[in-house]
């Protein structure tokens, strides 16, 4: 408790006042060419050396001594700018920066302030811009946000084509994926081969692996904050591309110049167009595609107020002839209102609606037709206030409220049945202070308090408390909860989530950072397959599922070399999880009303060392990332049926101790850009049988050592080249081509065991997903 008292003191008392007379310079930093506000741009007073960084809406506020000075502004990918100010009074200073072109003859060697990575408190953060994602060689040429993220340290997937991603030993459902503040429940298209983010519509991607700011919560392992473009406020523009898998088009432009602009982006895959060419009639009649629509409008009400409305609509559709249809997708809408209350107070209020649905059905004219619908809806209200209190304190506080409605399954058709809906409300309040204690020492101290209540109407099973297991045999009754009646509520001291990050700057090019985080998770993806599927459902914490908790400590060393051109970071972390959902052996999770009968509760631990060397400017860019990490789970029930692996620690499915990635990109000349990736990973854990058993002539493997073996190592090389055609007046075009898995490594996805269909002999079989080189060609344009 002492810790919290101290924190409270920092927040409420410890804001020192400074006698020196200061003025406030505040405003918005934007891209001059299209009016897009810039996130994370740095503003720096050369005299007093105080600095500020723009928030996700491009707003900054900087306190400087009241005397003439020079303000230096820098942002990655833009030319630095310096503005002289008289320093006589508070001033709104909106700044437009000019992009630094990627071509070699225009390389800008950075000056002093390219060392934000050294001086800020951000630890365990990965950031990508759309152009970085586009320069990495990609599967089928699809610029993919999540695939690119997995090339960074600490971020992995179970295997190629698996849905979601794992951050520092966390499960795929432990990532809070936000698209313009709206949570996305399924980030994958085509079962996991591609992500739902259309890189053309994306402005900024930031992933917090640790040091998660207190304004974010509700997931244990990471926050992926994806911001869509706002739309060009200066002129009408567009870009698009034709690829092997999909085509896309983005249009943006001013509706009222400098005041109102829009962006719309669409993408559709067309694998299915080629399916009728197949000789197999079943494949001929198969439908398989996905599409995305992104849209955003923003309106600058006045110099202080701005409103944004954005939406995402994406869907996958699979139809096997007349047999069945299968579709799933996310819909999100966000309305945000920014209000600069004063030079030092920035308010953002947003309301978000997010909806994930899936549907499986047969045509209605079939004799035994059926249709299954599942849905999860949530309404969110966020209010966040940033107070740039003085040169030493930047406070951030706010509230979040999320209301969930889970409709896990409704079957209509010949038989009609429905799983009961589940209702829950998650509430949180938070405060944080970024405190520059000395010139070299900065502390980001935050505290979040969160909880959930699960309420009726709902009928809940009661189980024999002495049985030690929840199953059909231990049900002793049922309790009916009326509409709005609380089934379970978790608002207690466990809902306190301290978030601390610290930076000690050793020199302008060297710092040490540390962080501690507690995170709580109140909704859980119920999935026990190797890769989550679109039909996996989410369930809230309730009477039987407790909120999950993770604690993480991280320590990092950051060093910039060669005038900040090369950035090196080394981070070590240890993370421990409690109340993780796990599954009984042979759990049947499909269409189960009382899901608690299939579940177990376990612990987890993950630890690792991450090394990153990157060069982001100049004609030759890239990074080398290496992670040494472990992730393990333990389920210690009282009974054998409530244990996994006899209650011993076992490796998580995605535990890959060694993970090395090299990403290189060279801008050879104005026309040619060459990219290469190399990835090496330890094979993921699989379970080998200890023995062979038999039941009435059916042979089956006996497993006792969960994930006790590993598949062979994974490695792969990808190459790409992009040729940019000479620029026409308004028209720029390029052609990219390359190969994924250049040397055709037969990387196993899994090893499984079955009886040979002909001989009945038990056999081991290796499954590979992309066992051959996969070439691609993509044509891109913009105007």
């Amino acid at each position, binding site marked *: 408790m002492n810790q919290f008292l101290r924190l409270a003191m920092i927040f409420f008392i410890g804001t020192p006042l400074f006698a020196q007379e200061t003025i406030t310079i505040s405003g918005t930093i934007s891209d001059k060419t299209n009016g897009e506000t810039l996130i994370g741009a740095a503003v720096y007073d050369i005299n007093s050396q105080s600095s500020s960084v723009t928030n996700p809406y491009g707003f900054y506020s900087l306190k400087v001594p009241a005397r003439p000075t020079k303000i230096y502004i820098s942002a990655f990918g833009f030319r630095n700018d310096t503005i002289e100010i008289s320093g006589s009074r508070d001033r709104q200073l909106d700044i437009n920066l000019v992009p630094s072109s990627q071509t070699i003859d225009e390389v800008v060697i950075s000056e002093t302030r390219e060392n934000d990575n050294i001086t800020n408190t951000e630890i365990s953060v990965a950031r990508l811009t759309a152009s970085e994602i586009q320069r990495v060689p990609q599967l089928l040429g699809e610029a993919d946000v999540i695939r690119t993220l997995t090339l960074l340290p600490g971020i992995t997937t179970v295997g190629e084509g698996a849905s979601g991603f794992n951050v520092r030993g966390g499960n795929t459902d432990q990532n809070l994926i936000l698209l313009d503040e709206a949570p996305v429940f399924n980030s994958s298209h085509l079962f996991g081969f591609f992500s739902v983010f259309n890189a053309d519509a994306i402005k900024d991607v930031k992933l917090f692996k640790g040091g998660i700011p207190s304004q974010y919560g509700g997931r244990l392992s990471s926050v992926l904050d994806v911001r869509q473009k706002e739309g060009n406020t200066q002129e009408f523009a567009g870009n698009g591309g034709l690829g092997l898998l999909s085509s896309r088009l983005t249009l943006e432009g001013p509706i009222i110049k400098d005041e109102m602009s829009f962006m719309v982006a669409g993408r559709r895959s067309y694998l299915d167009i080629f399916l009728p060419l197949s000789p197999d009639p079943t494949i001929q009649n198969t439908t398989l595609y996905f599409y995305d629509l992104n849209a955003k409008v923003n309106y600058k009400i006045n110099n202080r107020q701005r409103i944004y409305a954005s939406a995402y609509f994406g869907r996958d559709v699979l139809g096997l002839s007349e047999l069945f249809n299968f579709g799933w997708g996310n819909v999100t809408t966000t309305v945000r209102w920014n209000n600069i209350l004063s030079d030092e107070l920035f308010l953002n209020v947003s309301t978000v609606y997010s909806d994930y649905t899936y549907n499986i059905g047969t045509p209605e004219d079939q004799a035994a037709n059926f249709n299954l619908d599942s849905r999860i809806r949530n309404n969110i209200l966020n209010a966040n206030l940033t107070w740039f209190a003085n040169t030493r304190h930047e406070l951030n506080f706010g509230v979040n409220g999320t209301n969930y409605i889970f409709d896990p399954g409704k079957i209509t058709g010949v038989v009609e049945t429905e799983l009961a809906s589940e209702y829950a409300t998650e509430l949180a309040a938070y405060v944080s202070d970024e405190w520059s204690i000395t010139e070299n020492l900065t502390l980001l101290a935050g505290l979040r308090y969160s909880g959930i209540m699960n309420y009726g109407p709902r009928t809940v099973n009661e189980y024999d408390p002495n049985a030690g297991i929840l199953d059909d045999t231990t049900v002793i009754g049922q309790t009916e909860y009326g509409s709005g009646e609380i089934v379970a509520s978790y608002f207690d001291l466990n809902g306190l989530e301290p978030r601390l990050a610290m930076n000690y700057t050793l020199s302008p090019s060297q710092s040490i950072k540390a962080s501690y985080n507690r995170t709580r998770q109140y909704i859980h993806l119920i999935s026990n397959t190797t*890769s989550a599927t679109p039909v996996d459902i989410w369930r809230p914490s309730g009477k039987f599922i407790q909120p999950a908790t993770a604690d993480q400590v991280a320590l990092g060393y950051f060093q910039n070399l060669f005038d900040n051109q090369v950035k090196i970071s080394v981070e070590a972390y240890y993370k421990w999880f409690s109340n993780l959902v796990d599954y009984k052996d042979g*759990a049947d999770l499909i269409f189960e009303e009382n899901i608690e009968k299939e579940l177990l509760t376990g612990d987890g631990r993950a630890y690792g060392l991450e090394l990153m060397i990157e060069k982001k400017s100049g004609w030759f860019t890239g990074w080398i990332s290496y992670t040494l990490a472990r992730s393990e789970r333990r389920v210690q029930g009282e009974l054998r049926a409530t244990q996994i692996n006899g209650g011993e620690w076992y490796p998580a499915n995605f535990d890959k101790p060694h993970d090395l990635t090299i990403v290189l990109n060279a801008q050879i000349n104005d026309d040619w850009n060459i990219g290469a990736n190399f990835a090496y990973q330890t094979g993921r854990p699989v379970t080998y049988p200890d023995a062979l*058993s038999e*039941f009435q002539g059916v042979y089956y493997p006996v497993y006792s050592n969960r994930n006790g073996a590993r598949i062979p190592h994974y490695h792969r090389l990808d190459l790409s080249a992009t040729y940019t055609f000479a620029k026409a007046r308004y028209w720029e075009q390029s052609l990219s081509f390359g190969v994924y898995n250049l040397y055709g490594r037969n990387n196993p*996805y899994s090893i499984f065991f079955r009886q040979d269909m002909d001989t009945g002999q038990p056999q081991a079989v290796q499954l590979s997903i992309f066992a051959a080189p996969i070439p691609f060609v993509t044509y891109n344009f913009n105007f």
Partner: protein
Amino acid sequence: MKKLILFGLLGLGLISCEQVIDLDLPETPSQIIINGRVTDTVPVQVQVLASADYNNGSVPGISGAKVLLYENGIRVDSLLESDTLPGYYYGTFTGFVGGNYHIDVEVFDGNPLIAAGNWVSKRELLKRCPPIDSFYSEFRPEDILQDEGYYVAAHFKEPQGRGDYYRIRAWRNDSLQNMPQDLTFFEDEFSDGLNFGTPPVPALTIDGPRPVGTTYKLELGSITEAGFDYLAILQQQTVQVGSIFDPPPASIIGNIHVKGDQSDVALGFFSATKLQFAEAVIVE
């Protein structure tokens, strides 16, 4: 219904490649496997076997065990080992609907495969099973679900009252169809009191398509919920493999355990079942 959803997932053609590989697997001590079945028509049978290395391809029998059958807690049969098949024990007893059955198996010192011990099964209730009303062959045109050709199918009326579980086995030309893919079992969750063969419940199609003259024998048997769960996990672990959506490998725990210690489980399952049979020949 659940299977249909599952099929939806498995039926997805992924750009994948499979290859059989040689693996060095760990050698572990043998464990006892006890499978048995008491029925209302076929005399009781129990197999006492020992698990083998996975690559071995078969499991040896355990000879010289004492195998007893109990009905409602009273010993009703002592099974004798086959002269030709080591580890296969046969009795003479047949059960009745409503009886509770369990077995007791004792293995003595000196067995080369496993240490001496005494195992029992949990009690299994022999449940009702409706008769097969008809079993016939028919020609079906090609549609998306099936190829053109001759099929055999059965009609029967599922009795009123939820909680019935069934297993089907079929012999084609006198050969039992017994690969993991042939495991067929279902519950009356969506068919309670309905007629298989009258919409909305389709007839039970057994196999096919097959040529004219193919003979079939069909066995419809009642099973318990425990038996259903056992077959479900057996099927999950043997059939639902080979995709990126595999469930994790799991131990298949049946209803056999060391006498006096329910938590010390053995491999295998003992079931009680009422059987119904029907035969058909594919005709033009």
